[in-house]
């Protein structure tokens, strides 16, 4: 199986929900059962990418056909079906699974309000270890960056270029941290992640490095649970413009500027009409998707949620 990674950079609040909840908020976001950390389910991302590359859509003229393993050029629709699987209608005639395996996007950095630098891109050793594990799977060897040591407590790492600290302190939400600096591993990590999420954009790479921060796992887990955005929504009665009875509900969102990463696997084609290998199909997918894309992911698009930068990338590059 061929693998690649992708990043999601939320440009607005992002609601990848699970429907009605019975917890603190009525419409919570999806979270990983084992860790409680927010995710964007792969199914939602697959649907969006499938539509983005649908040759039947307007504006799809740039999409190219591909060749199968025998060197035969295939119609755009056949390549698209080999990647994503047939449409529901075509599946009735003879279904098969698409070659792509789009996995959940996992939280990489959570933006948290900061007294200095407006906000910090916060992560923790547990998440970085997972990120490194995925890097190892893709690249085959352990990445060339080390993990900074951080014990549980009230200390946090920032980069040497940090703009979020003042007098050796960082003030996040209502949490104050003592700053640790001058660590080559922290600077290298910030460089690598910045280059992967903001390729060819020096300004945003600099913004990221100035705001990158590693805090203890326990505190991060607490922030990932309590520092997501909760918005109250109401429904107005037509005519009177007063709140309809019972129509007050709370929605949870990942805040704008959240960064996530995920993996995509690609297998050989399972279509009778296409004999592409995993390598051919992944190459075709990467060519079609091109560089970064502006997409809408998750629910509540009509009220401005879910505008993201979707960036195909390299882990541990």
């Amino acid at each position, binding site marked *: 199986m061929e693998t690649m990674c992708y990043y999601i950079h939320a440009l607005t609040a992002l609601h990848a929900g699970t429907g*009605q909840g019975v917890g603190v908020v009525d419409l919570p976001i999806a979270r990983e059962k084992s860790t409680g950390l927010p995710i964007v389910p792969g199914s939602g991302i697959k649907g969006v990418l499938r539509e983005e590359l649908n040759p039947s859509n307007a504006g799809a003229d740039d999409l190219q056909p591909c060749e199968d393993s025998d060197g035969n050029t295939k119609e755009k629709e056949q390549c698209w079906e080999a990647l994503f699987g047939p449409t529901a209608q075509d599946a009735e005639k003879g279904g098969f699974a698409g070659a792509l395996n789009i996995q959940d996007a996992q939280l990489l950095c959570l933006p948290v309000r900061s007294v200095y630098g407006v906000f910090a891109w916060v992560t923790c050793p547990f998440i970085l270890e997972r990120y490194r594990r995925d890097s190892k799977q893709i690249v085959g060897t352990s990445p060339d960056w080390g993990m900074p040591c951080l014990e549980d407590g009230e200390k946090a790492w920032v980069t040497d270029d940090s703009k979020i600290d003042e007098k050796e302190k960082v003030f996040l939400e209502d949490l104050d941290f003592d700053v640790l600096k001058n660590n080559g591993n922290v600077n290298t990590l910030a460089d690598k992640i910045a280059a992967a999420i903001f390729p060819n954009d020096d300004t945003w790479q600099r913004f990221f490095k100035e705001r990158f921060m590693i805090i203890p796992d326990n505190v991060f887990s607490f922030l990932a649970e309590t520092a997501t955005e909760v918005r109250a*929504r109401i429904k107005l009665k037509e005519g009177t413009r007063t709140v309809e*009875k019972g129509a007050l509900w709370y929605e949870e969102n990942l805040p704008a500027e959240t960064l996530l990463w995920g993996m995509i696997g690609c297998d050989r084609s399972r279509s009778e009409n296409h004999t592409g290998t995993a390598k051919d199909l992944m190459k075709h997918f990467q060519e079609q998707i091109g560089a970064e894309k502006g997409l809408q992911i998750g629910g509540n698009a009509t009220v401005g949620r879910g505008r993201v930068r979707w960036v195909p990338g390299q882990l541990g590059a």
Partner: protein
Amino acid sequence: MQTRQQKDALQALGDVQSILGKGEEFQKSYATAVHRFPFLIRQNGLQQTLAFYAGKAHAKKKENEQDGRSTAEGQFLDQILKTLSLYRADLKYVDVLGKLAKADLQSYMLHTRRCLEVAIWYRRFVESVLKIDATGTSTEQTTDRGENHDGA
């Protein structure tokens, strides 16, 4: 052995049932306090939210009464504070809040999580026992919160 959820549900059920005998206005104020509580914690943090409720209770207190424990906000605050290990019935709110302010980060995070967990059960029982929803109206003729709103 019982799960934390079982214990929380049992506590919340008894506390909400104890409000049934109070007047309609009291029940409505109590229900509003309950419904807003977890949202306020998520927006403002635990310390701020508890101080806000203590302030509300104090503002509405009867003459010669300490802290306003008999008000709807005071009753709920008392009930929710019971879940925190630093609570003692003979302490004034300001003393409990002072102890919370001195707690270390790990304890503060735990207190926040516990209050959020328990608050969910109070919300559920305010809806099913008092039958009052988040807008302060009867649940008997209203739609479910948020249903059919989770789409584009």
